[in-house]
């Protein structure tokens, strides 16, 4: 029983991280119909910035803020310099470009920081909390993971639903040409979408680092799980990313706990296949709008 509870708690915590990266994938997909294979390595890059600053004795929260800012800027720069020129080009180009960026970033990070894994300090204690008389495998750091990803999700939701910028973003995602025809500068909106997506990835990067073998490829498997989560959630919906993330986190945690952790990637593949064959549009996409 307590094993089950612990696995559930772990699943929720990692699920929030998958959700954060999945949110990034969803934002990019909605804005530009591109799967960003470099989402994880961009997060790796901004997290290395934070780690470098921490090594030079900058405060934790300052380094944290810098990494998020670097993430935001990196997303904007990537959109402007690499993605924008692809407009109107064959479909395969974006795949090649984001995959190329993935290889490039990991190669450059390896050259600068080395490929050996290292430890990264955490903002909060990672030892399990004691609830009543039971020690559970859920730490202050897990609470921080939960809180920060939820906060990000809520902020994004408010941005989309309650601000002019959010209205522009939704309009541009649904109907780019019509949005231009009512004066929306769709190009800028796309840049912002990529920036916010990269920000969500950066947050995940920072949250994963302390509990992983931190090296240039430490986000690779996370990206695979986040992709699973995004597809489960339907690729279109931020709420879908959250639910898809939690679901993927829980299932993989049970697979790892009961069947062995080496089976986790296989578990993700099974989830993907099940969802794609039962509901290819994901669990959370809206019913198709009436086509007139």
């Amino acid at each position: 029983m307590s094993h089950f509870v612990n696995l559930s708690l772990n699943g929720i915590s990692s699920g929030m991280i998958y959700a954060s990266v999945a949110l990034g994938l969803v934002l990019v997909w909605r804005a530009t119909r591109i799967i960003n294979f470099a989402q994880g390595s961009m997060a790796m890059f901004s997290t290395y910035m934070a780690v470098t600053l921490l090594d030079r004795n900058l405060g934790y929260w300052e380094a944290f803020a810098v990494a998020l800012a670097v993430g935001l800027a990196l997303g904007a720069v990537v959109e402007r310099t690499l993605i924008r020129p692809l407009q109107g080009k064959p479909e395969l180009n974006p795949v090649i470009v984001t995959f190329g960026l993935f290889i490039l970033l990991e190669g450059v990070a390896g050259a600068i920081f080395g490929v050996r894994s290292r430890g990264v300090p955490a903002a909060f204690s990672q030892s399990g909390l004691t609830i009543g008389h039971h020690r559970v495998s859920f730490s202050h750091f897990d609470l921080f993971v939960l809180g920060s990803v939820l906060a990000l999700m809520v902020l994004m939701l408010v941005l989309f639903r309650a601000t002019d910028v959010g209205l522009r973003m939704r309009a541009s995602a649904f109907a780019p040409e019509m949005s231009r025809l009512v004066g929306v500068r769709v190009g800028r909106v796309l840049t912002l979408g990529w920036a916010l997506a990269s920000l969500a990835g950066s947050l995940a990067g920072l949250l994963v680092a302390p509990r992983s073998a931190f090296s240039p490829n430490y986000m690779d498997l996370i990206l695979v799980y986040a992709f699973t989560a995004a597809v489960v959630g339907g690729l279109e919906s931020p709420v879908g990313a959250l639910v898809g993330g939690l679901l993927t986190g829980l299932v993989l945690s049970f697979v790892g706990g009961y069947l062995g952790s080496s089976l986790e990637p296989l578990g993700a593949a099974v989830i993907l296949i099940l969802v794609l064959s039962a509901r290819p549009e994901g669990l959370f996409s809206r019913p198709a709008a009436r086509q007139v």
Partner: protein
Amino acid sequence: MLEVDGLTVSYGPVRALRGVSFAARPSTITAVLGANGAGKTTLLRAMTGLVRPQEGSVRFDDHELTGLPVEEVVRLGVAHVPEGRGVIDQLTVEENLRLGALWRKDKSDRKRALAETYDLFPPLAERRRRLGAALSGGERQMLAIGRALVSRPRVLLLDEPSLGLAPLVTAQLMALLAELTLLASLTVILVEQNARSALSVATWAVVINLGQVVVSDTAAAVGTDTGLRHHYLGF
């Protein structure tokens, strides 16, 4: 002053416009008439930059519009209600309307323009929170026109606005356009299938056939030329 000069547009091998020129005088309504496939929609699309002309230019006051991105043309005060489906289905009625005025700086006037549009089209006011996808054809048309009006345009390009509207609503719309040309110095380019109703409200008329201007004259002169009417306007 809105001037179209020698506009030529091709869709691949299909020539849709061949050297179209005309000028729309400020604060007037210019009707653009012609049979199906004459090139009316193409003309409006070329004016806002939705299609790129091979030749020719469009000027509005001191601005050269040819080559500008669509959104920048719109931000100069040129609103375009496209043929048929301009409503964004996944947004609510209110969001669609707000979107129309979003580029304008004056926030309080944006609110006022929104309220005026609801007064003008009461069915929209009753359906604020409804998704665009769940509107009737006529309601969609009202929404598309309302969204252009909330931007308080200086030039309004309308592509068959009466399509799907009840005769009474069409009449109200035409009266409103006439009023706006006087009160708000709006310049209207009105593409219409229903030549009779367009000529009754327009001051000027341009008749297009096979991508070329056949006549460009006062609406009264075009409306009373029986040869023209029989040949190109079908009444």
